[in-house]
């Protein structure tokens, strides 16, 4: 099941790389840019929100820091790509600070704390016009001089592929199992020796790095940013919605969520005009009501019903002697 998902996602991303060669308009490519940008952001969020089960509603902080990092460091005369790197590092430093405070909290307290940090950053960016340009905004250097729209599109597809590969690897690593153990029951995880604080912080650092990179790409694509565009709560919630509706804690959930929701949002904008957010809200409600485990989560469970039943009936756990074990192994072959 998981292998199939990964294969389909890989083929999909590979196909996506060739899309710009079919003479699409810049406008269409910009929409697709957004689709894959949020897929990458959702995958990054999924490490913290999905696998580790920590509902972060403040990922706009890392997005915005990545964006502003690029803008402000290059204003100091640093070359754009070095500024991107510095922005990503700055996003990770922010994550370390935010994480060290907020990870001590659980459940709704954690979610609210992450919102608060992101909002403080937004308000500081708004209220310090000397540093950030405030509401007037700040210019961002163009990262790709040659056919920019295509290049930006390719770069987010690659970022998505990277995030997907990393998630797949983490999901099967010891680190990933630690994260899932923390999600299922933090106290039990602690009691068997999982260093929950460190694991959660690492997950957040990785997540923030990808999110910051996404923010830098977004900023450079638009060439000009203001705080309400790259640091608002709407970015945080959109990232979380994409990942959760796709299926939090599933490998390809965020990708599926982003493709469906971002294209739905674009279609709604054209079809329903002013009512687009209303329909979008209804869509969220309907998915939550009828697929409470997310799209991918619910589908995998439905499909699992039709999987081949195990050879040994599940009433079997009689005292498992070595003979019985080997018998069962033989039966399974």
């Amino acid at each position, binding site marked *: 099941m998981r292998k199939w998902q990964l294969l389909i996602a890989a083929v999909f991303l590979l196909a996506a790389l060739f899309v710009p060669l079919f003479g699409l308009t810049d406008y269409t490519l910009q929409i697709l840019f957004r689709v894959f940008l949020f897929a990458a952001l959702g995958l990054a969020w999924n490490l913290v*929100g999905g696998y580790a089960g920590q*509902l972060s509603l403040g990922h706009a902080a890392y997005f915005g820091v990545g964006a502003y990092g690029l803008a402000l460091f290059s204003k100091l005369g640093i070359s754009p790509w070095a500024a991107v790197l510095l922005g990503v590092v700055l996003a990770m430093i922010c994550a370390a600070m935010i994480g060290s*405070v*907020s990870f*001590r*909290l*659980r*459940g*709704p*307290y954690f*979610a*609210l*704390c992450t*919102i*608060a*940090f992101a*909002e*403080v950053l937004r*308000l*500081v960016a*708004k*209220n310090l016009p000397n540093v950030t340009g405030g509401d007037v905004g700040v210019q961002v250097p163009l990262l790709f001089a040659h056919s920019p729209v295509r290049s930006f599109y390719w770069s987010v597809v690659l970022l998505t592929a990277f995030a997907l590969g990393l998630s797949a690897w983490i999901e099967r690593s010891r680190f990933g199992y630690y994260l899932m153990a923390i999600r299922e029951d933090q106290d039990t995880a602690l009691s068997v020796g999982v260093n929950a604080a460190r694991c959660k912080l690492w997950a957040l650092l990785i997540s923030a790095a990808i999110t910051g990179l996404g923010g830098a790409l977004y900023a450079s694509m638009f060439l000009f940013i203001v705080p309400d565009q790259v640091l608002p*709560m709407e970015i945080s*919630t959109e990232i*979380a*919605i994409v990942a*959760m*509706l796709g299926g*939090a804690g599933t490998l390809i959930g965020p990708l599926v969520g982003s493709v469906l929701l971002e294209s739905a949002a674009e279609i709604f904008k054209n079809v329903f005009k*002013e*009512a*687009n*957010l*209303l329909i*979008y*809200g*209804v*869509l*969220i*409600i309907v998915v*939550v*009501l009828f697929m*409470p485990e997310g799209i991918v989560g619910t589908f995998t469970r439905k499909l699992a019903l039709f999987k081949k039943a195990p050879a040994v009936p599940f009433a079997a756990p009689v005292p498992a002697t070595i003979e019985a074990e080997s018998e069962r192994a033989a039966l399974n072959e």
Partner: protein
Amino acid sequence: MVNWFYIPLQGIINGLLTGALYALIGMGMALIFGVMRIVNFAHGAFLMMGMYATYVVFQATGVSPYYEFPLAGILLFFVGYATYMGLLRPIRGQVDFMVILLTMGLALVLTDGAQLVFGADYHQINIPLLSRNIHLGSQISINAPWLVSFAIAMALAGALYWVVTHTMFGRAARAIAQNPYAAPLMGINVNRVQAVAFGIGSAAAGISGALLLPVFYLFPEVGNQFKLKSFVMVVLGGMGSIQGAAIAGLVLGVVESLTSLYWGNEWALAVDFVLFILVLSLKPSGIFGSQRA
């Protein structure tokens, strides 16, 4: 006398007047959080609904919002009750994420719905009371509508506190807040109590909206800032403690007012959040709360 005394005093008085409305909003949120353990992201949208409902009635009849606020309360009680019964109850027992997500979706629907019906324009109403000022001595002056809304909000906050501490509903709600597993074993109908609590919490938001209408601009996204502030209040007060949220509302009003006075209006919300982070990191149970985070 001297200005260093009267200017901050005026600031504190203004803060308390705003804070009373915050307190009512925060108490509604705290009641919902206490019995359901979810953060209601539609709280601001409910407040906005209360404001628009009052606005419509005011435009049609000309009756001052200070008389028609019970209508907003009744309307929002039923909206909250129906929201719980229709949307939240079916997904009870699912992960908290999904419940939060649902309230976000609902907030989007209500906000955009208001924009479709009423447009994105800013509205303001004009009542004769707005131009009345009450002078205390030569230095302090209080705008009459704020004083009226302060009195109403404080009375309602007191009533809500009484309901929670002295009625069977209140006792059941506190029992659920204390232990959601033991409460049903003691014969408490959790569904009904949660539905009523959600209704009352939403009604508090709606009434606050009605009381805000004369002194505030009305537009579809007006609820967002109050939603954020109600998060702050619920945490400052200790999650689920409604008297804590009420005191936190007053504190927040004063802090904001003094911040605006000395540092500029644009920093008020930032100071709210810094206060919030400080409290969460130093004393996660809230300043006035006893529950452990």
